[in-house]
Structure formats: structure tokens, C-alpha cells
């Protein structure tokens, strides 16, 4: 479902927030309804109509076409990833925030 034909409607998904669950088509710069991606190709298909709205994969990764930093950083991938346990940080403030640089 194309929500608006204004060719300069958006530069990122954040610009589409006013339309609810939509994301920015980065080629045409218009907001489209967010839909579930095709699972056969591994590529998000934001042009498919009337599909579910979740872009969250089973592992919590982002499985639509990424357009913002959080989406790029968490996009589904077959790359090796190795978590760092931030529980190893022993010099945090009592509320868990970072101390200022001395």
C-alpha cells in the first residue's frame, strides 16, 4: 500500500513515523506500509501489499530493508557474531550508566 506519492516524502524510516507502521522506500523516497519480508530470498520485500507489519526476525534481527543505523546494525545476516558481555564492566555508576571520562 503506497501511502503518499510525494517523491520527497522521506529520507529514512524515521520520517515515516507520522504514518504509523511504515518504512521509507529508499529508492523512491516515499513511505510504504511495513510488511513481512519474503523468506525465500532473504531480501525484504516492502512492495508486497497487505502483509504483516513485523520486521523482526526469529532471532530478533531486522529482516526488512534497513534504512537507519539501528536497522543496519541489527539486520539479519549470516556473518559470524560474537557478543561481548557488558557484565564484565565493573566501573559503572550505580544506576548502570557510564562514568564521565576523567
Amino acid at each position: 500500500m503506497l501511502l503518499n506519492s510525494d517523491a520527497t516524502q522521506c529520507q529514512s524510516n524515521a520520517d515515516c513515523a507520522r504514518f504509523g507502521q511504515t518504512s521509507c522506500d529508499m529508492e523512491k523516497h516515499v513511505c510504504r506500509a511495513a510488511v513481512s519480508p519474503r523468506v525465500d530470498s532473504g531480501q525484504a520485500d516492502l512492495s508486497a501489499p497487505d502483509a504483516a507489519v513485523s520486521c523482526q526476525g526469529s532471532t530478533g534481527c531486522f529482516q526488512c530493508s534497513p534504512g537507519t543505523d539501528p536497522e543496519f546494525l541489527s539486520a539479519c545476516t549470516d556473518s559470524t557474531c560474537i557478543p561481548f558481555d557488558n557484565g564484565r564492566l565493573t566501573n559503572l555508576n550505580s544506576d548502570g550508566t557510564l562514568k564521565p571520562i576523567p
Partner: protein
Amino acid sequence: MERSSRYLSSLAAVTAFVAAASPASVDAAECATLPTPVYVTGSTAAKPLLIELSKYLVIQSSPITVVYLGQGSCVGIDAILNGTPIQGTGSSAPSTWDATGAEKKCDVTTPIVADVGISDVFATTCFTLPGGVAGNVSDFLGPVQSMTFAVPIGSPEVSISAEAAYYVYGFGNSSGVTPWTDETAIFKRDVNSGTQRMIAAAIGVPADKWKGTATTGSSDLLQKLTMASPRDQAIGILAADVAQDNRTVLKILAYQHGKQSCGYFPDRDSTSNEKANVRDGHYAIWGPLHLLTRLDNNGYPLKPAAADVIGYLAGSKTAPGQLDLVFLEAQRHVVPQCAMRVKRTQEMGPMVPFAPAGACGCYYEKVANGATQCTPCQRQVDCPTSAPVCSYGYCERS
């Protein structure tokens, strides 16, 4: 015994690298007497790429001699923005390379303003420039460089988060992040280093507030890092091109950026070379190489040969002879713009999708890893609808 043997092999490898990076000066000529010298100064991390390009330029029918003085990215920017001249003789003389890549020194006895300032970071990362760079200076974007955290090969550590790095480099001995709690084994560069400036922007520790042991350049840091004792407590920062050339003696750590739940290598895994995670935005610490030069009144680089060097590195000028720039850049572990799927316009700024004209991601992967899963093609009709563009011999998405 096996461990000792491996350590000695590592030692030999580092010694060889450092020796190659610091040749003795023999029969140094005046740089100005060499064929069409182009004076380049700045990033030490960019040196390996310049060597490869220089090997080809020096044997062309109209040869160009790249005269290079590595001083750090911010010094390279200063050289162009402020016209700070370079000078050097003997052991501090600039370098040139012959067709085999052998390094030679040449003297600059009379100070001269460099033609190209080469930097791993944006000019605004080094200097406060409210209006951007001056109108008579242009900043051309070259291949993408990624910066890494590295530990000696024997270290048990495999990843680091932005928050952990914040404490390691912001607090040093008091980091509270075991095992990186000894500043003598925490190696940094200096405030003029693009590597340190870019990582500083990523982890939120101002470049002039870093704790740790200072080093004079990439090769010095590499040597100190790999010779550190005890090795388990050692950590350093290196551009990926230097780090990946030394995988036998060090390990690149997977990096987990703020808000990420997992750390990634620049490459798909710890042994591959295709920079998949840089190209698609999973690995956060990257930026384009910057090639600054002064312009004439018509907006062209003052020295035509400098424009050629910049054009080759930026991918905007057809490479001479048999030079395959994508192949060369893959060898040097940097990513040509045509292989990127994201771009940035400021240091560690937001990433946006990028669809380069003449995409070369598949070909880059092929030459970097020796294989690609992309569909080979000769014409557009050979390609599936999911990757409809035939470019560099492979079907690309766009």
C-alpha cells in the same frame, strides 16, 4: 615448545613488517628531480595502498612519482588547509617506491607544500571548521577504511563492546575491564592519528583524553602490541589494512557498537577478506579515505598529476595499464565505493543506503576471498530479476 616456536615465527613476521616499513636511506636524491613528483602527506594507515598504486604509476609512459611522508591524518589535512609545508632529509625524508614496491627515500631540503593531504577522517574531525573546508580546497572521497581493535594472537579475548572500549581507553589502569587494566599494555596512537580519531568518535572518548602507551605510527603500534608482555593484557588499535596483513601475529576483535547485541568483524568472519560487515553496515567503525587538494581559480586541482593520483584512488579516473583498482584495493583490505551498500557524510554519522553506479560488490568479494556466490554474467540478460544488473562480470542488485 610449540607455543615458543609459534611465538618466534610471529616475532619474525613482525620484524619483517617493521623492516619493510622502515627502510634505510641509501643514495637519496632530491625528490624534485624525480619524474613528475606528487607530494602526498598524512595518514600512515594509507601507506600500503599508496605503495601498490605507486608501483604502477612509476612505470607508465608518463610516469608519476608518489612522494609520501606519513605524519598522521590530521597533519595531512593541515598541510592542505593551512599550507603547512613538508620537509625532510635522511631518515626523516619522504618515501617513494619503484615498480617492485621497494621503498626509497628522497630528500626535500627546501620546504614545499604537499599536493595531496591524505586522511582517514573528515577535516572537521581534526579541526573546528564552522563553514567546512575553504572554497579553494576539495575533499575527494576514496576507498573505505575500517578501524579495528586488536590483541596479540595468544590472547583469549575475541570481542569488545563500545562501552568496554570507552573504559579501557578512557580510564586506563582504572578501566575495570579485565584483562585490560594496565596502561603499559594498552596501546594508542596520538591525537593526529585518523585511526584514533575515528575510534574516538565511535566510543565517545575524545582523542586527546586517551589513556595508554603512545606509539608513533601503525608499524610501531604493531610491534609494541605483538611484543607486549604479558600478552593477555595487551590491546591496540589499527586500521584493518595493517591488522589483516598481520593475522599471524594478532587477532582483530569483533566489535559490538552501542545498542548492538553482538560483535562483528569487518569481514564475514575472522578469516575472510570481503568486508561484508563494513559494506552492509554491521561493522560500525569505518569511513572513506579523504584526499584533499588545493584548487585553481577554475576549480581544478593545482597540479594535474595530483588530480590523476586522486582520480585513481577515488575511482573516478580509469586506471592506467593493467592496473585493476578493485583488485588492488581488495589486496589492501580497503573497500572501493562501488562495493559499498551504505554511506556516511560525517564522522561516524548516520548510515544511509547506497546504490553505487557500476556496482562492484560481487567482483570485490571474488577477488578478496577467491570466490563469490554471485551469478557470473556477460550481459544484462544473463542476470535474474533479484540481481538484474551485470557489472564487473557479476549480477548485482543495482
